[in-house]
């Protein structure tokens, strides 16, 4: 066909251009020139590329010690009592969000007069002095790998972002923290560290991006050995890109945003975009079986990896070739994927890459109710025509998203918004308290995107869905990046909350959403929470046989003496409800220590035995002693 030949000629042009770009890229960074080919060689002691990478060794230089994300970015109520998002990093940065105050007051019964401020600075005296294994430290010194015993450094690596972890930090309460932080620069450094750790019986806890929400980074209080946090953040180079096979070989400490940015410079992407991608690392994704928002096109992490190198106490585990699929017994990658740092440190990963999409388009659909929305998503999954991302928010979350609309600049847009609302609620008869919205992201070449878009909107129309514009869609996705900042704002005003997720067969999606939300509300009431909680969900991923469901849950804890305890009880009950309704223990957050108690029921006793025996063989001394999973 004509279009075919013209397509291939334009393809050829495009490829040529990309090649040029990559070569140009290499030329611009002569100092990195050889590292792009010689993976085994380490970088110099002082990294020359620090300025382009996001994560410095001293995380405190740019990040909060007791909350989410960058120090310069946060929500606050300004002197006029209006919510404002500070900094310059996000689309929402520097904007006024007029609806947020009312929403917070209305939803939680929160009050701007009642503040619950955090401890402003970390006092080093609150941190236990380190337990030092002198012999180990001496030998590490001789290798020249940088390390630190500094209190701040250690506290930064002692927690993830579970509610109880952040809450304790805000109160200035510091529990057991690692005794030492070490920053290997390459695979070989890690090999040395693990050897020394085994020799001196030191406990190693790998640390990637620190975004865990499963208590995976919590130091086991019963651990008496010296705990060393192995921070992979300096192992952050793309070692090579193979354009013939569309793969890239990358050090596992690289964080998502750097990986995408660097690949983009060469015209490629991995397409793996978990909500935490600003801070979470490639190694962390592998260790927790992460899932990205655009998995419909690119796949989840297990679909993306071609080759993994992991350093264990028994030595290095890796495959001998890069064949795209093998029948060689159980896939050893699946011992590594989801091992949550209990077996070793992932150091290097070969991943699939794709040319950057030519065209991206956001979209959104409003449905009269959640039931219709789920039915539509199910149909989309059935026809296997899901866009790069499709998410369905329930009514509460729709209202939440609405409250985060920034102040509009012109009277005209606000007038338009009013008209739209009028159209949907009055003309189409949608009930404001029942309608829900699906956000969409299409990717690919322009023509196909438009065609695809039409197909999806046609299906949506069958379920009463109305297209609601690109803006709504885009705002929906932006929300996922700022929501973690919003939790910090809530905590300033007696509101605590968290998200958790599950995966569930299609026929149970509606039931699980209703039952878990109802359970949360009831448990809060039974435990003396004064105001009804925010209990909301969204369907974030579709699969052939089911979906991933995400719950948000937050409440105003004024009047409770032990808010975190209440919170934990409610979350526990919610998880029990999930399991009783046929949901999984986790779709992508992992088990960590938070959900360990349900592992046996989840994988059966024999399954537990299998996992245990692997652990016993690979790490008999329990060097990787974070005690996750098992």
């Amino acid at each position, binding site marked *: 066909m004509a279009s075919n030949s013209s397509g291939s000629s334009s393809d050829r042009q495009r490829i040529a251009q990309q090649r040029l770009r990559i070569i140009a890229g290499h030329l611009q960074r002569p100092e990195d020139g050889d590292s792009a080919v010689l993976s085994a060689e380490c970088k110099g002691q002082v990294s020359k590329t620090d300025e382009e990478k996001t994560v410095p060794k001293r995380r405190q230089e740019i990040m909060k010690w007791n909350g989410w994300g960058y120090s310069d970015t946060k929500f606050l109520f300004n002197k006029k009592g209006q919510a404002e998002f500070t900094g310059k990093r996000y689309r929402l940065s520097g904007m006024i969000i007029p609806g947020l105050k009312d929403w917070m007051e209305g939803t939680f019964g929160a009050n701007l007069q009642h503040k619950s401020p955090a401890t402003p600075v970390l006092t080093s005296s609150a941190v236990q002095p380190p337990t030092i294994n002198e012999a180990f430290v001496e030998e590490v010194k001789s290798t020249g790998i940088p390390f630190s015993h500094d209190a701040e450094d250690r506290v930064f690596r002692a927690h993830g972002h579970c509610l109880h972890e952040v809450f304790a930090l805000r109160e200035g309460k510091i529990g057991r923290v690692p005794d030492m932080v070490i920053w290997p620069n390459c695979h070989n450094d890690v090999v040395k560290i693990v050897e020394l750790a085994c020799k001196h019986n030191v406990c190693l806890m790998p640390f990637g991006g620190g975004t865990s929400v499963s208590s995976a980074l919590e130091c086991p209080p019963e651990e008496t050995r010296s705990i060393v946090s192995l921070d992979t953040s300096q192992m952050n180079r793309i070692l090579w890109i193979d354009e013939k096979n569309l793969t890239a070989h990358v050090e596992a400490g690289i964080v998502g945003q750097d990986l995408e940015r660097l690949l983009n410079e060469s015209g490629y992407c991995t397409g793996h975009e978990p909500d935490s991608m600003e801070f979470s690392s490639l190694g962390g994704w592998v260790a927790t079986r992460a899932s990205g928002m655009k998995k419909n096109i690119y796949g989840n992490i297990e679909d993306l990896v071609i080759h993994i190198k992991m350093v264990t106490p028994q030595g290095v585990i890796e495959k001998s070739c890069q064949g795209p699929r093998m029948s060689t017994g159980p896939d050893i990658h699946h011992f590594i994927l989801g091992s949550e740092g209990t077996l070793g440190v992932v150091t290097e990963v070969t991943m699939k890459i794709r040319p950057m999409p030519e065209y991206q388009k956001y979209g959104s659909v409003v449905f009269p109710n959640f039931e219709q929305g789920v039915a539509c998503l199910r149909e989309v999954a059935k026809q296997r025509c899901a866009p790069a991302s499709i998410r369905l928010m329930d009514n509460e979350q729709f209202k939440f998203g609405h409250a985060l609309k920034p102040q509009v600049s012109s009277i005209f847009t606000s007038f338009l918004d009013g008209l739209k609302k009028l159209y949907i609620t009055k003309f189409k008869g949608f009930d404001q308290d029942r309608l829900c919205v699906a956000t969409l992201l299409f990717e690919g070449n322009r023509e196909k995107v438009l065609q695809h878009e039409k197909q999806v909107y046609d299906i949506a129309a069958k379920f009463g869905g109305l297209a609601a514009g690109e803006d709504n869609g885009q705002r929906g996705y932006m929300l996922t990046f700022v929501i973690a900042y919003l939790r910090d704002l809530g905590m300033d005003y007696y509101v605590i909350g968290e998200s958790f997720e599950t995966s569930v067969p299609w*026929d149970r999606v509606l039931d699980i959403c209703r039952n878990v939300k*109802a359970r949360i509300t009831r448990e809060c009431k039974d435990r003396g929470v004064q105001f009804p909680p925010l209990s909301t969900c969204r369907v974030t991923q579709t699969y052939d046989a089911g979906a991933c469901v995400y719950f948000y849950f937050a409440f105003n804890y004024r009047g409770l003496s032990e808010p975190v305890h209440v919170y934990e009880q409610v979350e526990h009950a919610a998880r029990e409800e999930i399991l009783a309704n046929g949901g999984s223990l986790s779709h992508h957050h992992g088990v960590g220590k938070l959900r360990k108690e349900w592992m046996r029921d989840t994988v059966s006793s024999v399954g537990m035995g299998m996992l245990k025996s692997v652990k016993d063989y690979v790490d008999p001394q329990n060097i990787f002693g974070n005690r996750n999973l098992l």
Partner: protein
Amino acid sequence: MAKEIATEMGSSVEEVREEATGILEEMSQNLQLGFIRLMGYTVSKMSKRLFSSINVNMEGLNRLQQAIQEHPVILMPNHRSYADFLVISYILFTYDIPVPVIAAGSPLAGMKMVGEILRRSGAFFIRRAIGSDKLYWAVLSEYVKTIVRTGFAPVEFYVEGLRSRTLKSLTPKLGMMHMVLEPYFKGEVFDVTLVPISISYDRVLEESLLAHELLGVPKPKESTTGLLKATKVLQEDYGSMHVNFGRPLSVRHLCQGKINRCQYNLIPRDLPQKPTAEAQACVSWLAHLVVRIQEEGSLISPWSLMACLFLQAPTTVLTEEGLLWQQLTEKTLWLRKLALDFGARLNWPEKIPDLDVMASSVALHRSIVQRKAGRVYLVREEEPAGKRPISAEEGAFRTAAAVLMMASYRNQCLHLFVRPAMVATAIHIAKTTQRDKIFPFFFFLQDLFANEFIFIPGKSSQDFEEACFFLKKCAAIDVSQQEVTVSDAGQEVLSFLRALLKPFIDTYQVVFRYLCEDGVHSFSEKQSLPAVRNLATKLILSGELYTYEALSSDTQKNVLSALRRLEIVTKSRVSEQNEFRVNKDAVRRIGDMLSGKIPPQPLHGPPGTRL
């Protein structure tokens, strides 16, 4: 599902679909509000005529109204009379609560007009004895579950399965119960609310009909003409009717820790599955609990207390000499105090002098008793038209009919006394004060009589403690860690309680005796009942047996069910007429335990676990 059955029966899927549609048509309700309005009018007219009042607990209704807004509600009334059927719908309609969809036996559907009337007032019909009809079962359970899931109307059904002929609660049936609970087990609804409803009648419309049925006179087929004939019933006074809406029960709350809902994760939820042992035990426990709550919620009438005492006098006294009115009234007042001690809900008007209350009770029940010259007599049915002298058997039969009618009214309050009565019996037969010897006997009695009275499975020790507590409260016994001693004042209470249980024990012994007779090897239910009746009649006439209640086919059937549950009687041939084989040694052993000749041993299986 349709496909599966089709392959099993070797017919096409379409045929099965058609059949399923047929079943649905036969079954489904057709609730029409207009119709209900009309019915409302009729019912109110009729009930005004029949009953002097219908009493409803308003706080119960308010709670129900609240519950209906939250989760699917299942109304679970006890079943004592056909009148139950309409009265709840009528009450709900009057108080502006959604009218329920009611599960009814399919014979009712066969009645001309009436079937349609009931259908339009929200009844759906189920066949009795569904047995192994897979398709019917599947269609029915899907129908019920859909109603529960969508929650557009409360579902009402009788957990006892049928009308109690004896006014005693029946062992709950679990099929329907399972169907309404399954949507919760499978996560299709957040919760299901059960509302036990206790309906108590001062006088039951069908009293004499029921007594005759118990004596083996076949139940007239439900027909419209039959109903019209029954209108003569309308001319009589039936006192008051009491409807008590119990506290709504959250199934979610009750089932906590009793059922692991994950068991439904691995098989499609719409595929009919045999319930697991865990689910069955949970359903059975809940069903028993509901029946107990129905019992506790029912109102006990003065007449029921009087009936207890009346029946403890020898039958000849009742028919010939008459019972001294004064003696009866004094004893009734004594029993009233005991009942209150045991926590009874009594319907004893406070503003009226006690004597008048009792007198009017007797007057209301003039079909059974008659007060003449300071004495009270049992009224037997009038002589049949023929002049020929009646035989002894016929005489016994007539006496029995009256006794059984009386017994039904006694049964209305039996649930109150049965646990302490079992303790009293245990103390008496075990002839010991040692607590750890009395309890096994109590346990044995509960196990043996689990088909006769409602005991919540697995609650025996609690029941025992509670019974001891009540007996201690009325100063009948003294309880220590090891000992249970009878006080002097307690003799009166204990002997009354023992006498309450005696007719049942005697009847069981009669049936045991029949089963151990030489001629009996295997038998069918149809043969055995008349044979037992003959034996009992003979024993009564010879003066060996005192209680006419042994003639009640209900108790006889219960004995057989109990023995089947204990696997002493086993099914030997499955056909239209089930045949049974009996293990005589085991029967003899139980008989000996019951009479105290040998100490009680654990019977096979705990009570209530078998369905």
